[in-house]
């Protein structure tokens, strides 16, 4: 297994100001663990000229400022950042400390006006709505990447039994907090946006908070679990949020 992964390990440029480190060519928790370990190391050890980095399913993209890295034109910026990333990769591997975070609980009120497509998903999958909720809330999901919209998590781990196609006509407005299914994926709409996912519920908590230092509740590498709640609980959580 290790042998196979190594074959896919590669560095390549994304234009003149970014380098991509790719750990593999398939979506898996093992490969993503390496993505997370490298991103963590980079977070703790930024180098001069680093702009930012973006972890994704199989890659970490490192953005740099060629002018600052080149020491005003005296050093080849690409080669320099490549060298830094290679030595970081070795240190990441030496670092055996595994990343363990608590599973983040996301309360969800399923069905009704919050999940107008729950009935459709149930009919499509030939399950009862209760079973759809059961399968959706039974597993722990891995956050592979935040993208598409601020704070929007790409989650892995959904039970294929509740997979359902996107809506043929996307909705023009989907309220923030909506939890949906599209194909084999499930996700949480972080801001109000148009979209085509089948909506099965809504969470009262904000996954995107621009006023906070860490604006996204979730980060790549986190694990989450959906906890079914009643409409009363939903309203109570909303009120508590407004109060604080």
């Amino acid at each position, binding site marked *: 297994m290790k042998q196979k992964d190594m074959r896919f390990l590669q560095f*390549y*440029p*994304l*234009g*003149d*100001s*970014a380098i*991509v480190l*790719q750990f593999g*060519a*398939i*979506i898996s928790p093992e490969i993503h663990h390496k993505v997370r370990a490298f*991103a963590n190391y980079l977070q703790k050890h930024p180098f001069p000229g680093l*702009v*930012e*980095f*973006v*972890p*994704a*399913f*199989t*890659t970490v*993209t490192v*953005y740099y400022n*060629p*002018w600052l890295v*080149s020491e*005003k*034109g005296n050093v*080849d*910026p*690409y080669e320099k950042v490549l060298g830094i990333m290679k030595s970081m990769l070795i240190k990441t591997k030496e670092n055996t400390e595994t990343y363990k975070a608590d599973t983040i609980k996301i309360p969800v009120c399923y069905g009704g006006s919050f999940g107008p497509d729950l009935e459709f998903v149930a009919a499509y999958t030939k399950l009862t709505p209760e079973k759809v909720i059961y399968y959706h809330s039974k597993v722990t999901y891995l956050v592979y*990447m*935040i*993208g*598409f*919209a*601020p*704070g*929007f998590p*790409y989650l892995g781990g959904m039970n294929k039994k509740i997979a359902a196609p996107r809506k043929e006509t996307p909705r023009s407005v989907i309220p923030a907090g909506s939890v949906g299914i599209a194909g084999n994926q499930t996700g949480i709409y*972080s*801001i109000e*946006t148009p979209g085509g996912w089948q909506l099965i519920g809504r969470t009262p908590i904000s996954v*995107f908070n*621009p*006023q906070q230092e*860490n*604006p*996204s509740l979730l*980060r*790549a590498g986190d694990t989450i679990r959906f906890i079914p709640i009643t409409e009363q609980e939903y309203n109570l959580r909303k009120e508590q949020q407004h109060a604080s």
Partner: protein
Amino acid sequence: MPLEILKPGLLSTIQDLGRYGYQKDGIIVSGAMDVVAHRIANILVGSPEDAATIEATLIGPTLRFTTPALIAITGGNLSPEINGEAMGMWRPVYAAAGSILSFQKPVTGCRTYVAVAGGFAIPEVLKSQSTYLRAGLGGYQGRALQTGDLIPLNEPADTIPEELKLQQNHTSFTQTTWALAPQLYYTSEEQPTIRAVHGPEYDLFSETSKTDIWEKEFQVTMQSDRMGYRLSGATLALSEPAELISSAVTFGTIQVPAEGNPIILMADHQTTGGYPRIAQVITADLPKLAQVQPGKIIRFQEVTLEQAQQLYIQQELNIQKIKWAVHNKTHHTS
């Protein structure tokens, strides 16, 4: 003392150099489309290069200075006027209290930058004043400027050039006798050539596509905005279908959806994408691209990564040169 928006123009937003450090949270960078024009505008009024400016698109806004203000206008030439009288671009201009800045026809380019000494007294959201339209945050109330907006200004430090100080009692505006030499900045061309390096999936494209991208003309269609430029011309295709896993993208990424018409990602691009990336516009040519009006024709020219980085460094050296020249001009009376 605020800046009063009398007419908003087509799309006028407050932008700085962008909101960096949050792409891993799915938060786009935003910021000025023509970063170089933006930086020069700030240099001309003695502001830090990362201070916010107003980015106006094709049809400029009409605005009133309620207090005297030192301003500079750079980027595309949208025919700026103060109180109906043509004003110079690429130089410091001192506008009297009550004077009205407006724009006439776009002559060249697409986006113009209005820097005001002292900058805008608006809050930073996630360390930036840039407007993020889709999430409704940053800038002025998270949106494009509208009629009646009153944008508060900071009290400026004294950066008024000596030669303008002598004429401060003027009732309309005064401007320096000098302006930046045109060879120091980009002047829009009719059919610009945009330099690019290979994208990560370049080798997955068909031989025809790998020729067409560098040889064919592409039109920047009307469906082009701050998020991306949709091109039409040659349709591009992979040599065989490939399943790609979503990964980070950046300003200038040229991606190709299944229907084959390339899209160039611009300042408001999403943080990640899953389309094959045939090429990547070099950073030094992004300002040129930002000034292309929808409907115009562009071509791509292939350069190496090493050339791209050399051009990046040259552009920085050029900005240093401008900074030094402006400093000398504004701090010494001749």
